[in-house]
């Protein structure tokens, strides 16, 4: 790991990230395209607008729901999880 690299977890799995990178970008770099399941139809969703407008890339970060993966910065040791359902 270079001095610019950090690590967080997604559903328990270690994910590398560069300092300053968003959680969503780091996940996409590891080919993780699905980030949540919708409330009613349980469809998979991932990054769509990429700039914090659409609220579709929601994940749970350190127990807090509804965090936008595309804009939240990856921090060392962060526990990120797939958000299942409830997002309102």
């Amino acid at each position, binding site marked *: 790991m270079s001095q610019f690299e950090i690590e967080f977890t997604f559903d328990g799995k270690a994910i590398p990230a560069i300092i*300053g990178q968003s959680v969503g*970008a780091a996940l996409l770099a590891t080919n993780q*395209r699905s980030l949540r399941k919708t409330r009613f139809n349980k469809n998979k969703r991932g*990054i769509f*607008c990429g700039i914090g*407008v*659409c609220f579709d890339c929601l994940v749970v970060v350190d127990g807090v729901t509804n965090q936008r993966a*595309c804009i939240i910065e990856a921090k060392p040791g962060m526990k990120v999880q797939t958000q299942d359902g409830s*997002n309102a």
Partner: protein
Amino acid sequence: MHNVVVVGGGPAGLSAALAAAAAGAPVLLIDSNSRLGGQYWRNSSDNFDDQHEQHFDLETGLLLINAVKARKEIEVWSEAQIWSATNNEGKFTLRIIYQGKEKIVNTANIILCTGAYDRTLPFPGWDIPGVMTPGGVQSLLKGHGVLAGKRVVVAGTGPFLLPVAAGVIKAGGEVVSLLEANKSRRWLTSFNVILENLGKLKEAFYYIKTISEGKVRAKFGYAVITAHAGSNGELESVDIAKIDRNFNVKKLKNIKCDVAAIGWGFTADTSLAGSLGCKQVVAKDESVIVWVDNDQQTSISGIFAAGEITGIGGSELSMAEGVIAGIAAAKFVGCKVEVLKAHRKRRAKRQRFANALIKAYPVKSGWQSWLNDQTTVCRCEEVSLGDLKYSVEELGATDSRTAKLFTRCGMGLCQGRICGRSVVDLVANELKLLPTDTDRISAVNRPIITPIPLGVLAQGE
């Protein structure tokens, strides 16, 4: 109390802040991003590889950003979210989440430079992971150094598709298809407009060169009309269609890809202006924009606006408008300064170019025929076209506002930013009517500008 409050750190906001500060006004610049530059000059931290290859002109952006940072008259709040704005007879109050706390800013002078985001159209499969906006693909590249996928389809309409396709190629991705829905090369006929904006042509050629070096040929009169998921529920392929001038489908073909970047121009983010009561109008491209006078002043004295929220026109027009807004706002707070004729001339020249582009890249109503009753329209609340039709045909909704109340369409976390504009068109079509300006403007009004956790408010100042 700050004399001038600028909202937004993109081309318009940076230019406005600098112009106001140069005229002697103390400025507070509020930006929601972690780094100044807006979407156009979105840049990553210095930890990433060379960022310049993802930009045609990062130099201008860095010049403005560094100038803003160097000016002691300008205070910058980054990662600051304005969640509420009120207007009490010329005294404006902004409520902002900044550094984990609520801050309240009172001012008599605001310059709104809140920008725009990709316009999207709903179509079957547009909610599958892997379907993205071109702006999203570009933001991942420019801001985070990440290529969204290996095999990328870039589609929709407008000149913005070019830098996105070029960016994918520069980052080592394959653009399997670059599809422009419009056939028109009408802008070529506006010869004098091009001659006076040669810089823009240079920018276009820069992207076209990269695209042709990547062995990609753009196809005109084509669109992505369906996206298909594989067994893992993620994007596997798209149906591309040859379309007529009105966007009706003529011929279909399926191609494999892992990302589809699809955008239909831009939608201005006028939420903040709307909250403050600034007059909004419907532009030629049917987007709702903020009305401004010759000095970039809105219908409310003391509130100015510049950049994409006053009409989609690109970074150079935004900068020209920002300078005028900055000078006019400084004058408003008592600085001895005047907007020069040269400033207005520069703005007019760039406005003519923007007008030519809007004319060349329309979004035609045939897109509605790509949807079926099962197609998701509101991504947040999972409302389908069938649900919307039911609200009109069975429940008797007579406008998009009522249809929204019946279905919750546009009432999710994005507050209709993504589907609102399309819902107005779809409901009007169901009613066999044309959308009115009132329909369009009411679809963009939001009581809360950005959803925030209530806990933060409890710790406010």
